[in-house]
């Protein structure tokens, strides 16, 4: 167990907003619509709202766990389950976050290969991306917060400005009739939606780096609300812009929406937008990888630099080995299922376990 970070390595509570948005608002905005629309059609936006609310509840639990433990998750695990089982839990969480990073890296490279450069080789792009990730992470947590903030400044305005172009083609009637699907269908869709909002679990690791950490909870909620609203807006726009069948056919509906934009100086906006999304990818990969290496340092006193190099090499190798769309989709769907367990089973479990254990301690 390491000492808590000193004051000069911490960041102000409101930065939690950007960190949460960075983790949740990434590549998901391009492609999340299809899986949800498959189940609930025109009611997809309801699933987004339900998922958003459920994430708020989970986030609240996360803060309760951390506020009680007053340290990061590896220490809390150790307190609750002892060094062996606790270590195992921590390791599982770390592996989960690192796999998320692999999934993000590979999806982004695939996106570039399909949209811009079909000849681009995976290893080359992975090399550039991960070299950048290395440079940022080695700079420490505050640098990562900086890149999250910058990425927010660069990507979100583009995202919202681009919503203006499809307006002319939108049909409100696509949204009706509301509630045309059963509750079971809605819940299935909600499950798929939650995957897009995953990533906030990194807070388990950077909690100790926040000044006055319990006060940052409201910023965490603001961040989640912001991501949920972004997803909600793009979902409603896609539903109104596409007919259902076409939405099901599009692999990246948001980019297809961007294809309609026509500036006088730029015929095809999606290429520019896709390049800007590098920031968004970079910050989530940085955040996940940083959380992973930080966890390893807590567990095994590994020097962060060494574990970082090893992990980045492993990420690159994994990315190169995922060759086809099916494999990438498979990884996504595995992560999809895993994230469900992490968010709706594991976090509540820790929450209640800690509560019960606390009560037992007090009575005895």
């Amino acid at each position, binding site marked *: 167990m390491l000492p808590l970070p000193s004051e000069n390595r911490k960041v102000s509570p409101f930065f939690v907003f950007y960190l949460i948005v960075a983790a949740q608002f990434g590549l998901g905005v391009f492609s999340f619509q299809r899986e949800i629309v498959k189940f609930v059609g025109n009611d997809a936006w309801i699933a987004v709202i339900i998922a958003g609310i459920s994430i708020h509840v989970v986030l609240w639990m996360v803060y309760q766990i951390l506020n009680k433990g007053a340290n990061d998750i590896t220490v809390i695990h150790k307190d609750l389950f002892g060094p062996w089982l606790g270590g195992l839990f921590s390791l599982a969480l770390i592996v989960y976050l690192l796999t998320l990073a692999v999934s993000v890296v590979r999806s982004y490279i695939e996106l570039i290969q399909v949209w811009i450069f079909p000849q681009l080789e995976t290893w*080359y792009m992975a090399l*550039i991306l991960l070299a950048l990730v290395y440079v940022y992470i080695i700079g420490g947590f505050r640098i990562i917060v900086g890149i999250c903030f910058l990425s927010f400044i660069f990507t979100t305005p583009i995202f919202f400005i681009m919503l203006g172009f499809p307006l002319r083609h939108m049909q409100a009637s696509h949204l009706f009739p509301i509630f*045309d699907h059963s509750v079971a269908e809605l819940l299935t869709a909600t499950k798929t939606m939650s995957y897009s909002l995953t990533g906030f679990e990194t807070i388990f690791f950077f909690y100790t780096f926040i000044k006055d950490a319990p006060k940052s909870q409201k910023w965490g909620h603001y961040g989640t609300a912001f991501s949920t609203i972004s997803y909600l807006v793009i979902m409603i726009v896609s539903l109104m812009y596409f007919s259902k069948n*076409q939405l099901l056919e599009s692999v990246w509906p948001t980019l297809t929406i961007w294809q*309609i934009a026509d500036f006088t100086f730029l015929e095809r906006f999606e290429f520019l937008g896709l390049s800007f999304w590098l920031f968004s990818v970079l910050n989530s990969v940085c955040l996940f990888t940083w959380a992973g290496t930080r966890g390893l340092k807590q567990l095994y006193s590994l020097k962060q630099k060494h574990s970082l190099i090893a992990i980045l090499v492993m990420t690159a190798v994994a990315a190169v080995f995922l060759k086809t769309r099916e494999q990438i989709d498979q990884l996504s769907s595995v992560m999809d299922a895993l994230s469900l367990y992490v968010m709706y089973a594991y976090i509540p479990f820790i929450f209640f376990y800690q509560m019960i254990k606390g009560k037992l301690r007090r009575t005895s």
Partner: protein
Amino acid sequence: MKKYLFWCIFFLILLFYNSIETKILEDIQHVSAIGYDYVDKHRMKGTAAAPFYPAGINVEPLDAFFTAEGHTFLDILQKQQLESQRKLVTGRLQNFLISKELAKHGVSELTDPLGRSTEIGRDVYMAVVDGSVEELLTFKYTNAPTSAEYLSDFMERNLKDIIPKPTVHVFLDQYNGFVQDPFLPIIEKKHDHIRYKGLALFKNDRYVGELSDKESYLFKLLYERTKTGTDQFSMKNKKYIALQNIRSKVKYKVSGSQDEPRIDVHVSFLGEVKDAPSISVGEGTLKEMEQEWSKGTTQRAEKMMKKFKELKVDPLGITEKARSHFRNFDKKAWEERYPTVPVTFHMKIRITNTGISNKS
């Protein structure tokens, strides 16, 4: 030392990696319009207009056309490539033409790459050509430097006032859509101009019928809110009056049950008298004009609706309106019922002014 070595190798790789195919503006030729004619059941003839810009300052673009026969979009492009001086790219494609003959045989094979390829934008304008596409594209028009430029100006700046915007996105959306049949403008080469002829109606991906240019203006009124165009009608005494459209709105109301649906179409039209020769325009005549217009337009709309029902096409998207109204919408049953669904038109008009003259 190890660190420097790593970064040196890293930058060397960055510098000398060249597996990406570059497309430098000076080395490529942009296809700005592309059109297809019917040859036989499996083959079609594609004509690509790719104006060539010679080097130098203030040079006029040269008209360049490449024609080839083949089975698919890419197959034809590859054959056209055999003739062109530079690499043909479709990134700035602006117009996509289909001959009427080809449209009658189905266009789904042709439009698939429009939805699949990232090299073609979604705001490409589409049209059906009455007659030969090759002739329309390769003709040397006197009113524009290149035929492709004339065509794209015509489609983008002019046609948008006459009919709903016919972009690839709209076409694919309607064609793939659950609930509406696509339509495209028909253009033709008349003497030495391109002329708008009417609206082609599609059932799935096949051309099945068309509306005339006059009908298609009414169609626009029934399809979306508009701010342009003039409408002419005759009074009882065979005097003709032209109305300028200020704005019009349209609203569909679905009522009844799914087994016995009713559709009411409410159009409200705000107009201005632009042309009323030898008619005194006063309080009484304005009312009369309004009534005449409503009556005449309702009749024309009913006639048009009858045509749609006979052809079993739904370009107005009435099915979509019904779907958004009824829960558990049964599409199959609706399709069978569509020709019998009563559609009533309610035309409301208000003439705001009679221009700057008040002749009585």
